[in-house]
């Protein structure tokens, strides 16, 4: 009878631990499932952020000074430099900025090295966006070329 009582005590101790772990595990699984359903694909988010490079006058898009009209997907070669890119987009200088979207931009035939945002690390490129067809305004000519955007985070 003594062994009986000891056996039952041990059983209920272990059962208590297993039941507690099961309930916590259940809550964690629900939480992980919720997070997976709510996640936005990072390629999509990067694409939306990178739109500004070719569409916004505050980035590389050409703006006619006489009419004030901005030409989407037309690059002003005078804006194609690191200073303009920093004005257009930069992430936090803290460690958090490294985990954010950081971009490297190349325009075929017009950039010798990639233009990089402040926390972009060349050998930590996570993925690249599909190449985009753009035009570069060279005097009165519009030269067709491609823009490549790489993301590190």
């Amino acid at each position, binding site marked *: 009878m003594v062994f009986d009582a000891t056996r039952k005590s041990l059983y209920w101790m272990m059962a208590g631990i297993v039941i507690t772990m099961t309930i916590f595990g259940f809550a964690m699984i629900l939480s992980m499932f*919720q997070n997976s359903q709510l996640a936005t694909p990072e390629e999509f988010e990067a694409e939306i952020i990178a*739109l500004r490079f070719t569409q916004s006058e505050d980035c590389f898009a050409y703006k006619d000074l006489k009419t004030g009209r901005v030409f989407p997907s037309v690059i002003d070669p005078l804006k194609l430099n690191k200073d303009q890119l920093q004005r257009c987009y930069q992430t936090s200088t803290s460690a958090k900025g490294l985990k954010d979207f950081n971009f490297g931009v190349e325009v075929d035939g017009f950039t010798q090295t990639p233009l990089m945002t402040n926390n972009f690390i060349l050998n930590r490129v996570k993925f690249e966006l599909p190449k985009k067809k753009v035009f570069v305004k060279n005097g009165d000519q519009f030269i067709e070329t491609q823009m490549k955007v790489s993301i590190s985070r």
Partner: protein
Amino acid sequence: MFSQKKGNSALMLMFEIIIVGLVVFMAFSIAEKFATSQTSNKYNLANDFGLMVNTLVASPGHAIVNYPGDLTPFNIVLKQNYVEIWEAEGSKSTIKKMFDVPIGYKLSGFTEKQKDVCLEKTLDREIKLRKC
């Protein structure tokens, strides 16, 4: 002696049934809490507003976006580098979405229990959150 053993068995059986009932009840409570919370809605809203701000930055000139859907249950504040959302009534836990805008942009705005909410970008590089 024999009746004592039978009595103990019955007691143990009742005890086990109570424990199982308690575990099932707790599992259902946790699942119900997840299903009825507004966390998913707040998270989706914050993501949507973050993407809308980035899209407006990329849109030349003056633009207005009307968020589709009834936002009456929520309070929303737009600050320079983030948008924050919490429930107007109920849980006060907030969800924040960060974003980075070009230098020279000013972001501001607050809506409280508004059904229709708009984001407007002006020619002066201001993005405002307001009632439509």
